[in-house]
């Protein structure tokens, strides 16, 4: 994520080119590595980046998209400066994480998997983060908020909106 914020668009294009060139000889065998490094550069995998990778490695664009859409690790949408992750694991779910998610969505005006227009927030409905004792739990970047109720969401988000 850090790299995204410090690189200009041209620098990102250049960095991607270098990655592709480094792995080009390995063709489709290198697809996962290249996708991972590309996501480190861009923060996600825009369609034109997938196209460049496909052409560079000699793999069909459909196959690249097939891989990207299969693994949850790869993201098709940009991430915000603040990634709000709502744990949807079993413990959090029975403790009402669905209501928390809906509240976050309505407060930010975006759905899970989307990024706000100003690039500040994105929402990630994630699998169990291993903090079941704090259920229901959310994280905003590295900050953890546990034992939440939906009413607390606006004040928590407000801190980041102002930041």
């Amino acid at each position, binding site marked *: 994520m850090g790299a995204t914020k410090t690189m200009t668009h041209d620098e990102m294009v250049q960095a991607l080119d270098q990655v592709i060139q480094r792995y080009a000889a390995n063709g489709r065998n290198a697809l996962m590595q290249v996708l991972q490094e590309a996501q480190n550069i861009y923060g996600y995998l*825009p*369609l*034109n980046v*997938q*196209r460049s990778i*496909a052409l560079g490695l000699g793999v*069909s*664009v*459909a*196959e*690249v*998209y*097939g891989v990207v*859409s*299969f*693994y*949850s690790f790869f993201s098709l949408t940009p991430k915000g400066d603040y990634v709000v992750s709502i744990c949807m694991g079993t413990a959090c779910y029975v403790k009402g994480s669905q209501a928390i998610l809906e509240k976050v969505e309505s407060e930010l005006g975006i759905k899970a998997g989307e990024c706000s227009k100003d690039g500040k927030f994105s929402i990630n409905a994630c699998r169990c983060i291993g903090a079941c004792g704090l259920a229901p739990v959310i994280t905003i970047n590295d900050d953890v908020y546990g034992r939440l109720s939906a009413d607390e969401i606006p004040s928590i988000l407000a801190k980041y909106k102002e930041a």
Partner: protein
Amino acid sequence: MNMVNLTIDDVQVSVPSNFTVLEAARKAGINIPTLCYLKGINEVGACRVCLVEVVGGRALAAACVNPVTEGMVVKTNSNRVRATRRSTLEMILSDHNRDCLACIRNKNCELQDLAERYNIRQVTFEGKMSEPNIDDKSQSIYRDASKCILCGRCVAACEKQSISVLSFLNRGFETKIGPAYDISMADAPCVYCGQCIIACPVGALHEKEEDQNVFDAINDPKKHVVAQVAPAVRAALGEEFGLPMGTRVTGKMFAALHRLGFDKIYDVNFGADLTIIEEGNELLNRINNGGKLPMITSCSPGWVRFAEFYYPDFLDNLSTCKSPHQMEGAIIKSYYAQKKGIAPEDIFVVSVMPCTSKKTEASREEMFNPTTGQRDVDAVVTTRELARMIKTAGIDFMKLPDEGPDNDLIGDYSGAGVIFGATGGVMEAALRTVADILEEKDLPDFEYKVVRGVDAGIKEAELNIAGHNIRVAVAHSTAAARKLLDAIRAGTAPEYHFIEIMGCDGGCVCGGGQPQVKAQDLMDIDVRELRAKALYEEDEIREIRKSHQNPDIIELYKNFLGEANGHMAHELLHTHYHAREIYPDSVLAEEEN
């Protein structure tokens, strides 16, 4: 090859050691059911319908991918096997849009066959079903994801063509098949060869249907409806009526077209003959005047699109000739219209084709007459659509007498035109004419068997004609084309003068518009060879077997076109190509919003 002995359902069988259990069982007279299996294309053991019990084995094994071993004992019809296959089928059916009565593959569906064979009476698994998701934006291919059973045969067929516009997308219940970013086939770099349709066991993929447009035109008293039928259709149409593969049904085909109510019926073989005159002369011009070589044929619209997307640096190598049915359409709306005193706008030309890419070709803007603004060809129906039209009309195909095309103006055709439908046919037809022109005589030996056949994807020959050394190559399937063009790009191929490329393996006889053949039947036969044989038979019985000797072609030049490659020929019969971008930014931007 070492032989291996095994026992399948108490039958002793001895088979080569590289056989799978599926192949061995077939040899023993036992048909193990399959669904995702497609010989030589998709052998992945994914659908689990072919599971069998191997005695001593822990779990059931997929017969299509398990090799035979010495002394193996296999049970293909135990209670355990049957029950497992039934549950697998029920699970596949639980997320299948089962509107079989309204499905284009009704009674011609491998899943339906299996449901019948295993006496499925109800689908016990009820749950969420995939939403209907129809992509009918392209002119050629129609996809309905709710019919898709994710067998992957289309993905493998597309990969075999070295194109891979189709892939598995997403994961789990959301898994589906589609082009990158799940865009329409119309926006993907698809060449519309239709091999995915041929591979599909169910109704998830089929041609964009145009039969109703044709019936509408026939029904319209103001329209003069002319049908023209491609050579490969006669080699396969009979299959739709239960005839053995390779049965030539030329006579019944013309009889059926007459009964469907077309005003005139012609053979695209005439257009093929015309193509040979134009293309042969273009080749000689290029050789004599230092033009771009090798010259590559342009009859196959799948190949043309493939070049436009993937090998744009070769577009100047393509012959500028339109494909035979486009040429013939242009002649019907000019020469024929003039001679018959019918206004071109009142003529409706229907091409019956073994091809799905022809549908898109006919709507290209280059295929409109620049003066009249009329399309050369108004509708394209596949061999399958013609069969359905014949059935709808209640025509008893098997009882039809043998008839021919109308024989006025553009009715005659040569044997050279007929073989266009098989790989190597255009090359052979061109050589018959080019050799006669160069040698300035009617050569008695004109069969170029060296360019026939399906065993090699790329065929090569070097011929000495009138002191000229002419090097030729023939490639069938876009994968073979890719291999050949890559070698030319790399400078490792000989300097060819002339190359024939067809988009489909085997040529037009195996086009995407031809009858689908069930995967089980494909295990024992070579469709390419059987259907091609029908065309070479017809060539042999034609009195005229060289395009330039077709009297209607001679008349056409004398009374209308003037010179081959002349001004009028260029206006009506030639075209141009343009590079196409794959997944252009405009398409990506639309998806990202």
